[in-house]
């Protein structure tokens, strides 16, 4: 670097300083040890590596490469395959027990993985009533470990979710957690003590293990030499890992991550892309945009406990007025699908396609007319009807309930724009659509905590727009969301839906161990929900991800995206 170039910047010391630093950078030695590292861009750093506390997406991402479950889903058909288990479980209907044979595996510290680790994990969750995990284990009565490679679970009652949910929860190491458990037990607030325990080096059985966490900058997971899958073929896939490790780098904003992705500083941005980036990224031949469906549900919910939304006709008219095409095309920029039922279409096994589609194929005028029809039939009146005598659509004014009272102003609660701009925007647009027919609606974004408190805790609201980005593939949530037993403070039946028939079918579904029969029950549940509309299913955003293809090959697409353990185990350096 010559005098000339620095002189051209003279007069501005700041630039010169920058130049000097750049020069130093070029002179730095290149990385040189073993297999190349995969660099993963994330938005935030994990909040905690304590698996019992870590509920945020970023912690789960890191921990999912460390802690492993007994069974996992393979990417092509999403079928359960043995993972830490050696083969499929053996069910004994006589005493409601599942017998599971474990694979020969080692923890990342080299000690063997045994059945007592599994039993320990289950007992820990039950003893401390660990949130998020307890519901998976609460119905397990007893656990027996006849030998280090065999675990027998005795259930209190038949439970369909045992296979799909319980057996896919991660297992922790008894050696690492036993001292913590004993310490926490002595505390008055034992759960808090357990959750607040800092775990510096989580010991797992996964393909990677923690090497270094530099707070605020990156997390480096190196390849676990004790990974049970290395060199094996599981679910027809040859597992590595063939990479030297993973570096999770947190960016804070998508902008920064995308810029680095384009520069080649990271290989994948492990987060859904905003549609705005797609065009630009598609121009780069080394970047591949991967679209995957999400197991999500974004919906508008009503308070069925009070007027005006205790009226089914009104809910149906709202469902008719909502323009799902507008939401998907404009707000989601085309990267999403409309939802007609509460189970996402991507979950092909459980999604019911034969449900009523309220607004399908109608233009704005037709929607208003149809909604006007539904409401008029139910006895609603207007001071100025939205459809005048000649059948022309005008702006409706002064809507009155069937009993003659004017409809009181109501609010549609949404999460704030910083949390999810799309849902906030949907709330605003729904407000506009409802106003056209004369309904006094106003959208009100509010902080997420306050929103859930109002909807779930105090249950004092009119309507809301919420969503789940990561529903389990098992459809048991349909039961959870709408069964009347869950209509209580902090309960999951937020709408206050109360249908005896639904309750009956739902309880039957969770105990039904035959897949086909259970499927039929779940379809029936969905039809009831779509007919009664405690929730109006709106959309399911598509997962857009961008990966670089110049350094590694072998990305594995899956329902939750390309960033998954299969990908990380199969990626090969170019």
């Amino acid at each position, binding site marked *: 670097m010559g005098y000339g170039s620095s002189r051209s910047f003279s007069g501005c010391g700041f630039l010169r300083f920058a130049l000097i630093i750049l020069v130093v950078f070029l002179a730095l030695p290149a990385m040189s040890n073993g297999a190349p590292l995969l660099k993963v861009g994330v938005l935030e750093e994990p909040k905690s590596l304590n698996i019992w506390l870590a509920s945020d997406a970023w912690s789960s991402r890191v921990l999912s490469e460390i802690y492993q479950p007994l069974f996992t889903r393979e990417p092509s058909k999403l079928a359960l395959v043995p993972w830490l288990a050696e083969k499929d479980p053996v069910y004994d209907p006589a005493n409601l027990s599942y017998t599971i044979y474990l694979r020969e595996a080692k923890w990342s510290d080299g000690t063997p993985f045994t059945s007592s680790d599994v039993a320990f994990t289950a007992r820990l969750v039950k003893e401390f009533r660990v949130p998020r995990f307890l519901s998976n284990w609460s119905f397990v009565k007893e656990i027996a470990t006849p030998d280090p490679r065999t675990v027998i679970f005795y259930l209190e009652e038949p439970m369909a979710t045992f296979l799909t949910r319980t057996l896919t929860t991660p297992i922790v190491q008894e050696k690492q957690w036993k001292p913590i458990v004993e310490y926490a037990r002595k505390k008055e607030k034992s759960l808090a003590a357990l959750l607040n325990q800092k775990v510096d080096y989580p010991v797992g059985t996964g393909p990677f293990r923690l090497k270094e966490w530099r707070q605020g900058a990156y997390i480096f997971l190196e390849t676990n030499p004790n990974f049970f899958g290395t060199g094996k073929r599981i679910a027809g896939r040859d597992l590595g890992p063939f990479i030297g490790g993973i570096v999770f780098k947190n960016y804070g904003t998508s902008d920064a991550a995308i810029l680095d992705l384009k520069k080649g500083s990271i290989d994948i941005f492990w987060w859904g892309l905003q549609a705005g980036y797609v065009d630009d990224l598609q121009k780069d031949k080394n970047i591949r945009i991967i679209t995957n469906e999400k197991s999500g549900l974004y919906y508008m919910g009503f308070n069925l406990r009070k007027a005006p939304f205790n009226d089914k006709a009104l809910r149906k008219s709202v469902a008719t007025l909502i323009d799902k095409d507008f939401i998907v095309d404009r707000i989601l920029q085309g990267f999403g699908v409309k939802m007609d039922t509460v189970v996402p279409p991507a979950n092909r096994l459980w999604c019911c396609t034969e449900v009523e589609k309220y607004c399908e194929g109608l233009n704005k005028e037709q929607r208003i007319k149809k909604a006007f029809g539904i409401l008029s039939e139910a006895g609603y009146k207007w001071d100025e009807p939205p459809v005048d005598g000649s059948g022309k659509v005008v702006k409706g004014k002064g809507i009155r309930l069937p009993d003659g009272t004017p409809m009181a102003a109501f609010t549609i609660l949404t999460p704030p*724009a910083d949390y999810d701009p799309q849902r906030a925007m949907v709330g605003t647009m729904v407000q506009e659509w409802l106003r056209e027919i004369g309904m006094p609606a106003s959208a009100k974004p509010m902080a997420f905590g306050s929103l859930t408190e109002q909807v779930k805790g105090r249950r004092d609201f009119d309507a809301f727009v919420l969503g789940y980005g990561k529903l389990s593939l098992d459809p048991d949530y349909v039961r959870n969301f709408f069964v009347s037993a869950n209509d209580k403070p902090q309960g999951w039946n937020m709408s206050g839906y109360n249908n005896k028939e639904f309750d009956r079918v739902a309880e039957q579904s969770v105990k039904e161990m035959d897949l086909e029969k259970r499927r039929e029950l779940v379809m029936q549940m969905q039809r009831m929900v779509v007919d009664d509309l405690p929730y109006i299913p709106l959309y399911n955003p598509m997962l857009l991800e961008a990966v670089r293809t110049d350094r590694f090959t072998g990305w594995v697409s899956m329902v939750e995206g390309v960033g998954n353990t299969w990908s990380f185990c199969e990626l090969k350096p170019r």
Partner: protein
Amino acid sequence: MKGDKEIRHRPHWFEQFLEGWSVFWQNPLGKIGVTLLGIFALMAFSSFIPPLVNPMYHPMTGVDPEIYSSVGPSARHWLGTDFMGRDIFSQLLAGARIAFMVGVSAAFMSIFLGTAFGMIAGYMGGFVDTLLMRLADVIMVLPTLLVVLILASLFGQLNIWTIVLIIALFRWPGVSRVIRSQALTLKQRPFIEAARVAGASHIRIIFRHIMPNVLPLAFLYMTFRVTAAIIIEAALAFLGFGDPGTVSWGMMLQWVWKTGHMFKALYWLLPPGICISLITLSFYMIGRAMDEVLDPRLRREETAR
């Protein structure tokens, strides 16, 4: 000579105003500031026009039926559209209205509070004074943006008037200190003494005798408070805690930032930022020019010693 006589008939305050205005207008900062502000006022007033021309120019809900993503400037959309096909230019105009509303009303309220507290503290003295000024000290060290941020998250999304009110509640101490010291000196003046001897009530003395004398100073501080209020509102909206029902410039910046358009849509990134910066600049310039009018010390620079 004839003109002289006419001027003498004008009321005292008007003459003072004229003199102040001429000094103000001689100052290039004042001139630039007023001109810029005039442009923004024009923008704010004309913000009502686009939605009348065509509903698709409604800043919040109007979308171009043929445009489904952010596109650059064209004859149809002078500054292009945002990611949903909404017109950026009409959003910019609406933003001017919000900025004025927020800035002026928050500043007015904080000046009102500051002047009232300042006069009371200065005039009453003693315990009231100590209490008010300690309170002012406490509030003064709090970073307003972070306070509003915390309140925004605690009480859910705030609407624009709540934001205005909170800004006002946290920005009065600076003003009240200045007003207080002014009131303290005024208190010693003979005409206040005279009024008190004549039996005027405290309220009457404060409003009739002290207030007219501190008002110009309060007005000066108002211009600086306007900029502060606009900046805080914009920053709040930028961080995603603004009123989602309004289109403000901060909100526009948040949209361009959060929807991933900042690298490719300069036509969307530049205008709101330039507007926020220029409107604060114009108020700031006006404030500085007014400072010169009100503070004769600065004017003396050029006269003989």
